[in-house]
């Protein structure tokens, strides 16, 4: 299925195109000229909608990219009057801001798995710095007077034909925005905004996903700026200013933060009104600020969400029966051995793992038991880079995992099911299954192909046959599932990437007897089918007895004993720990 199928996709786009064409036909050229400016602002705002509405991080200095594009484009156009070679540099007006944005996001997101205020404030600071440099570096930027006398783009008179170029760019950008949203990358962006942590455990490098989005938003800003220069003929420092950056965010919020149409609506609607009313009515901007606060508090979807019911009706379409076989995952290797050597983990002065030695060399389920506080979940956290090691080494397939990030470890075939199911509440069950199917299978361009949406694997077919709710509830948001269904979904999500080492943290917690049996059966068949190694944390000994061939007992951050469950039940030291006889 192509991405443009469905009236919810093409209808709004055609309406937008018709409206933009109608303006100079029904109105006059000057009206179109004015509208052109706000359409350019709308382009920048679409970049904010992509990062904020889709990926969940808010840039507060977006005018920097707009201004950068405008200055470069202005300088090139002025230079081209004397020397045509200057034109070669024109793409820099778009590429420069894009690369700057991408690099910045790579650096800022490299070490974090959240999108909190740090990013927003750094972008704010960068925007203000850009303004400062633009004002003071007069030899290049013309200082406060700016770059004036910028000529038209060849053959595109700014009061007549340039409008059509702007309309073309806006329509293309809108289509690209919608396309990205419907491609696998769009699903991953929304998942990043919801539960970035979980996405990393699928093996997705979320910092790269976010950097890509921010790079695209920088490109949109640069593109808008590149057209702004010939449109206005003058570029002054306020194009980078924080005033404009603040307005861009307001337009995105009021118009609708997660829609390319909302971005255009906000920029054209509020922006145009402000330009006239701010002069005449001294309290106008106070009212706009109040409107913004009201939208944040009460109406996060913005103006376009008013049309949401209509949208949903248009979006109703039959599920596609198409199935494309997904690439296969590597099968068992000979060196699949997990080794903990003297692992120490210390948090807030408390020793959690105290020289843990553990060797897991045989396939099948290994039980990991021990009283509360023995360090079971911490063992998983240390293994998946969520707790730093104070000493010791962890090796998997002979490779030292030190210094690897959580997503890099997941890409080495380590899958983890969390104790508390961590799903993406707003994503549908079907989207969950798709993400898990893409995990470690989709590389580079796969995420930009509609085909990837239809990937199927034999394991997924088997699991869906086993658990009918996965199909029945496929169109519902996962946040609506019951606790038991969430536990099962979480387990399925961990199984679908076909990990070589499966970490299961209390997979049956909170399940009914019937559900527990179902869950255990699923684990048993999956482990047998994949011939994988699994570590199972479980307090329910009957579950351990049913699945595990080998059991390891942890106590106070150390390995107390290993063996079969029967052997351990006869072990005096283990008995003492469980009976509380020995501390």
């Amino acid at each position: 299925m192509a991405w443009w199928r469905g009236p919810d996709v093409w209808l709004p786009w055609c309406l937008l195109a018709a409206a933009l064409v109608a303006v100079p036909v029904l109105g006059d050229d000057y009206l179109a000229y004015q509208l052109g400016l706000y359409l350019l602002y709308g382009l920048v705002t679409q970049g904010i909608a992509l990062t904020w509405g889709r990926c969940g991080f808010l840039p507060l200095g977006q005018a920097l990219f707009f201004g950068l594009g405008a200055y470069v484009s202005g300088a090139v156009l002025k230079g081209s009057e004397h020397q045509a070679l200057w034109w070669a540099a024109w793409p820099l007006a778009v590429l420069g801001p894009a690369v700057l944005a991408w690099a910045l996001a790579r650096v800022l997101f490299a070490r974090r798995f959240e999108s909190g205020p740090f990013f927003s404030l750094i972008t704010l600071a960068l925007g203000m710095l850009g303004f400062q440099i633009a004002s003071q570096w007069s030899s290049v930027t013309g200082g406060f007077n700016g770059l004036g006398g910028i000529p038209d783009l060849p053959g595109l008179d700014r009061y007549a034909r340039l409008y059509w170029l702007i309309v073309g760019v806006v329509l293309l950008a809108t289509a690209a925005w919608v396309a990205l949203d419907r491609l696998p990358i769009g699903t991953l962006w929304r998942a990043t905004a919801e539960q970035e942590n979980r996405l990393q455990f699928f093996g997705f490098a979320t910092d790269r996903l976010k950097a890509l989005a921010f790079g695209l938003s920088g490109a949109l800003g640069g593109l808008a700026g590149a057209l702004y220069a010939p449109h206005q003929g003058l570029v002054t420092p306020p194009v980078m200013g924080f005033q404009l950056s603040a307005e861009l965010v307001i337009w995105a919020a009021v118009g609708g933060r997660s829609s390319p149409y909302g971005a255009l609506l906000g920029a054209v609607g509020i922006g145009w009104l402000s330009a006239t009313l701010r002069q005449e009515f001294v309290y106008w901007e106070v009212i706009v600020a109040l409107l913004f606060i009201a939208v944040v508090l009460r109406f996060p979807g913005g103006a376009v969400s008013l049309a949401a019911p209509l949208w949903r009706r248009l979006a109703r379409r039959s599920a596609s029966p198409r199935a494309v076989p997904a690439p296969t995952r590597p099968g068992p290797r000979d060196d699949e051995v997990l080794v903990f050597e003297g692992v120490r983990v210390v948090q807030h002065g408390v020793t959690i793992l105290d020289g843990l030695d553990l060797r897991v060399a045989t396939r099948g389920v290994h039980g990991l038991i021990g009283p509360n506080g023995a360090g079971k979940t911490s063992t998983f956290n240390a293994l998946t880079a969520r707790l730093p090691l104070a000493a010791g080494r962890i090796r998997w397939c002979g490779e030292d995992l030190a210094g690897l990030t959580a997503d890099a470890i997941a890409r080495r075939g380590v899958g983890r099911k969390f104790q508390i199911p961590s799903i993406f509440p707003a994503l549908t069950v079907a989207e969950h299954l798709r993400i898990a199917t893409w995990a470690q299978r989709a590389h580079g361009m796969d995420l930009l192909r509609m085909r990837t949406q239809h990937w199927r694997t034999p394991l997924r077919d088997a699991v869906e046959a086993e658990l009918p709710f996965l199909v029945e509830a496929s169109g519902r948001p996962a946040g609506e599932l019951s606790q038991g269904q969430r536990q099962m979904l979480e387990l399925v999500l961990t199984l679908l990437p076909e990990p070589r080492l499966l970490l299961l943290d209390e997979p049956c917690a909170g399940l009914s007897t019937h559900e527990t049996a179902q869950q255990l059966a699923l684990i048993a068949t999956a482990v047998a089918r994949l011939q994988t190694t699994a570590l199972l944390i479980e307090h329910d000994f009957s579950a351990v007895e049913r699945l595990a061939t080998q059991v390891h007992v942890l106590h106070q951050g150390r390995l107390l004993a290993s063996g079969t469950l029967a052997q351990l039940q006869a072990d005096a030291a283990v008995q003492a720990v469980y009976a509380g006889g020995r501390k």
Partner: protein
Amino acid sequence: MDALVGTYALNLLYQCALLALVALGLAIVFGQLGIMNMAHGEFLMLGAYAMVVVQRAGLPLWTGVLLAGVACALLGAVVERILIRPLVSRPFDTLLATWGLGILLRKSVEAGFGRGYQSIDHGWTGTLQVAGAPYPAYRLGLMAAIAIALGALAWWYRRSPAGARVQAMVSNPGLAEAMGLNTRRLALGAFVVGCVCAGVAGALLAPLVRIEPAMGMDWLLASFFVLVVGGLGSLGGLLAGAALIGGTQVAVASALDATAGSVAVLLLAILFLWRRPHGLVARP
């Protein structure tokens, strides 16, 4: 030469003390409550305009400090009830809401006072001889006051029951509530104290800086950088951050120019976020 070095050192110390003062309010609200108050700079701006109001009314200037504290306390309480509390489970939205609040305050002051610069004519132009060179007495007094205020605050936070309650709420809100602490009132109190700190800082700074509606942005960013570099949650972090940011700013600005100083500070903050996200002094 010695006098020059002495003056330079005093300027450095002065810059750091100012940063510590300005960042204190944000350190309480962001460091303790975890709320990124984007309107922090606007509370400072309001404090400075309180001095303008007092001066226009012909009242003695010290009443401006009082007015700044009272106004920011009232505004902070209202803001906490209307904006912060309803969004307590949506931390990202508090960022947005306080960002909107900042715009609102800026635009309101702009509508009321105009965009132009204001200034405070204090009569305190006396100087004192320090290390063989004259130094403005107001600056010296301000530095002493900042030192005393920070010391008193640290002592109060460590020793007083209220301080212990705030610490309990910060480290585990659920448990604190279960033990009978009124965390709503504590959070309100801490937020108001943060706002008052910002307002009073603005009033004290008013005679030294350019007063305009958009003045808060620079101070918000400076405070944020101090916290990023120093680390959240401790007075030691606040001081370390103020020293490093202030030192970098002054050193680079005097070697090159003010813009280079801002660039250096920004790069330093980015470097910290990248390589050392918990700052110089990690939360104990």
